[in-house]
């Protein structure tokens, strides 16, 4: 079983992103489970969301402690919460940042990867520089880096989750992020 944790800030769409990618992975024939951090949410406060993926049915109904993959939607979260908590050695941590992985300040025991989702999201008209909507863009990068799901399945789930995005800005941004990222 693969366990995944997303970190975001309340209102950034980390919980939506977790169910969206679970939906996409499920559409490719694997079993999934996704849930937000259990508790009260406040806009701007650190939040987390979780995903489980397995080829067998997933029976456990408890919290995720040791994720193999982590996605950090906002680099300022690294100072606020321990995004490496419970992460397995060599676990992959994908951070939304224009900086190089070595500049992020995370332990080098982890496979730290960066992707500038904010610039790409804003280029695609998803929010503004000060209030970017990065969740779909970062999902594109995360999908490519981890190899957990294909871009076509991801784009289909994005369209399902954002029916009012008639221009498909979210799916296009995710595709661009997917193409600009490197696997493994």
């Amino acid at each position, binding site marked *: 079983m693969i366990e995944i944790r997303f970190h975001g800030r309340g209102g950034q769409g980390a919980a939506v992103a977790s169910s969206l990618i679970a939906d996409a992975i499920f559409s490719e024939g694997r079993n999934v489970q*996704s849930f937000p951090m259990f508790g009260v949410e406040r806009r701007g406060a650190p939040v987390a969301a979780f995903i489980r993926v397995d080829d067998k049915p997933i029976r456990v109904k408890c919290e995720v402690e040791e994720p193999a993959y982590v996605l950090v939607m906002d680099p300022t979260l690294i100072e606020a919460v321990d995004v490496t908590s419970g992460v397995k050695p060599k676990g992959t941590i994908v951070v939304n940042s224009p900086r190089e992985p070595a500049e992020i300040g995370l332990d080098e025991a982890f496979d730290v990867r960066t992707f500038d989702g904010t610039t790409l999201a804003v280029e695609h008209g998803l929010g503004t520089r000060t209030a970017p909507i990065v969740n779909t863009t970062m999902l594109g990068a995360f999908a490519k880096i981890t190899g957990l799901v294909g871009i076509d399945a991801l784009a289909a789930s994005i369209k399902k989750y954002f029916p009012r995005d008639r221009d498909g800005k979210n799916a296009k941004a995710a595709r661009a992020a997917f193409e600009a990222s490197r696997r493994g």
Partner: protein
Amino acid sequence: MREVVTGNHTVSHAARVARAQVVSAYPITPQTQVVEKISEFVADGIMDAKFIKVESEHSAMVACIGASAAGARAFTATSAQGLALMHEVLHWAANARLPVVLANINRAMGPPWTIWTDQIDSLSQRDTGWMQFYADSNQDIFDSILISFKVAEQVLLPAMVVLEAFFLSHTAEPVDFPEQEEADRFLPPRVATHTVDPEHPAAFGGLTGPDHYYELKYMEHNAMLEAEGVIKRAAREYGDITGRYYKMADPYACEDADTVLVVSGGIASTAKDAVDEARAAGKKLGSLKIWAFRPFPREAVRELLAGKKRVAVVDRNISFGQEGIFCTEVKASLYGRDGAPPVLGFIAGLGGRDVKVRDLLAIAEAAEKADCPEFNWYGAKP
């Protein structure tokens, strides 16, 4: 059709597929999404139902009682303090023999203020005359609601389907939804008798003296006993349509087990992974999920637990000063029976404290120690 859906939205879909005709509810975390989705279904014309907004849970249940008395299929959902506020009229619904179905999202009772899960809210309603089913997955939630309507309308008792806050309510996982025609075949429109009908005026629930009240309770008790057979038949019929067969007491690897964990709700699902892990290490562990709490599957519990070396009951609830409530029920079922195993009670997971595979393995291990106390607070901090 299989879709990835949260427990809360599974409840909404079940009310839709069951063709509930009247839904009245008051929002409360963590149930709110149930009501939001149902109100969308009704507004979008996907669900042909009357959605009645009310000012409290007490009124929500009263609206369901009125609708059910008029012959409609009525549904509501709530949690914790909301269920407690309904308490008076929960008795009313059962005593009036109305087949209302309610989904309760288990949330611990305040104070201190809390939104996380335990079972005290629903178990406090044990003696209201409602049937109770504890779901262990989103699929179970959906299936239990359909089965509940079918059984409730036959035995004329209301039914409560119970799911844990967050561990089920906010967790999305694959759910297999039957085709509407399949669901309709299993659950045809309600055939109501003795309904409130202006064309045929009658009095309901009026003052009843000691001469008759006693016998009405006798009949209500018998209806609950009769429900056991009706549940088994309905579950079999549902299984024949969907391939999913529900059991009031559902054993997992129990047959040759030395130790059996008695579990309910989502913990029952986690317990299967614990059992597999224990088995892989050569330990004879099994689990028994209690799906139906009322009526309680006494016969099945006796048969399945007879001759075991020990039984550990995991209770996400407490009857203060006594023990876990499932534990008491299991003991009462086994009392005086040949081959009844020792029953050890473990409180765990109150107020949303996580119960993991390793916790269940630790409980099993503690139960296997010769000096294990009869009653335990698992993992309480000193």
